[in-house]
């Protein structure tokens, strides 16, 4: 597993900042794809030492997620998360955890884990990021 996603507030020089942090740690970036959505940056990164990179970027203050959790993009408004949890519950899925990753510009990114992520991913397809 060499790929993960970094979610943070978008800003000038972000890509250079990430590259600098990883470069100083001797980590080679194999691929980097960034998109800006309503003021948030989603950066998909592929490196040669993924777990080290995740530790370092997390310690630096970035939010990091992998395919081990489901990343959803929701409207940042009351009730949006409740709709998701209701849908999962109606489908017979148990939620193991939900964590807010980033809220900016009316958009909220959350990380989700259930007892059947394959089914959850399918159910939440329109909202899934990456």
């Amino acid at each position, binding site marked *: 597993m060499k790929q993960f996603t970094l979610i943070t507030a978008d800003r000038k020089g972000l890509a250079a900042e990430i590259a600098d942090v990883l470069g100083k740690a001797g980590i080679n970036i194999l691929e980097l794809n960034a998109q800006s959505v309503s003021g948030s940056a989603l950066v998909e990164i592929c490196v040669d030492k993924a*777990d080290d990179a995740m530790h*370092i970027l*997390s*310690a630096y203050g970035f*939010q*990091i997620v992998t395919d*081990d*959790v489901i990343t959803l993009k929701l409207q940042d408004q009351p009730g949006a998360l409740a709709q998701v949890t209701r849908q999962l519950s109606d489908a017979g899925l148990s939620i*193991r955890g939900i964590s807010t990753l980033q809220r900016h510009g009316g958009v909220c990114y959350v990380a*989700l884990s259930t007892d059947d992520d394959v089914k959850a991913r399918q159910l939440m397809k329109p909202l899934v990021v990456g």
Partner: protein
Amino acid sequence: MLSAVDKARLDALYQNLSENSQHFLGYPCANDLDYENLFRFLQFPINNVGDPFQDSTYRLATREIEQEVVHFFADLFRAPQDDYWGYVTNGGTEGNLYGLYLARELYPNGVVYFSEETHYSVAKNVHFLGLRHIMIRTLENGEIDYEDLKESIKLHRDVPAIIFANIGTTMKEAKDDIRQIQKILDDLVIQQRYIHCDGALCGPFAQFLDPRPAFDFVDGADSVAISGHKFIGSPLPCGVVIAKKRYVDRIGRSIGYIGSMDTTITGSRNAFTPLLLWQAIKQLGKDGLKARLQSCQAVAAYTVDAMNAKGIHAWRNPGALTIVIPKVSEFVKNKWQLATQDDHSHVITMPGVTTAHIDALIADMTKELA
């Protein structure tokens, strides 16, 4: 500045501990090593917060020392060279909790199997983790009953098996054979499995036992935990846990670690105990641990012979430092701090326990028999 009254309390406590340490035969704690040269480190607010292998801005720490301790035990337990990780814990319970935690993350619907002679903290740990568990019978010598284990696993072949193996049970120092356990799992075609070995007492010297028990990574363990305040002789409770790195990395990617990759159980962590363990392993090394074991085994053999000669039925598992005896009186139990369970008490010949101590204990026991 302490008041005169409080100073007097400390003096009295010191006196009490000095006296009690002379009659300390029932718990597996060595007290023969000198750590006075490390006292100077107590002036610093040292804290190995977070992962011992990751840099931190908190530099009042002993991470490099901790890493060397981890490397030493990983080597001792024949962990795969490029796939291990570990840290210095608060003790065996935390190390066991960590192993079970990794198992749960890999196999959330797994069932934990452990024997009835397993340390009481394990039932607590599986409760904390919300893990399903089944207690297995033990044989007379304290080892897990392999037949009962097989029959129990047979009834749950549709779920992963998480084996909690004892490498030195609390009362009898029995050792569960993980190669035999794996054979059971192979026979039942249980492919999803996890084996954690609790080597609290015996882990530091199991490699040097003859016959050598099957307990380390080459034998099939996925994680091993030890105590540092038992055979090794740290004066402060501590331990080490070694696990396969790929399992630990998986934890770091799970939902519970969003925002932090800190995979140790506690955030702030003792930075002094790695120093204690480091000094011990530097002074002893593998050869020293082996010599230490042989010395303790000699006292254990003496204890069994001396007790039997006086008509006290004493026995021990092959190579063990724990001598099982009939339940002693309250007086003997309290004076010598002997752990007692059901109809048995036990004496443990840790480093620092001499034949003179044993002779004095036997004298007290035979006085009551007369």
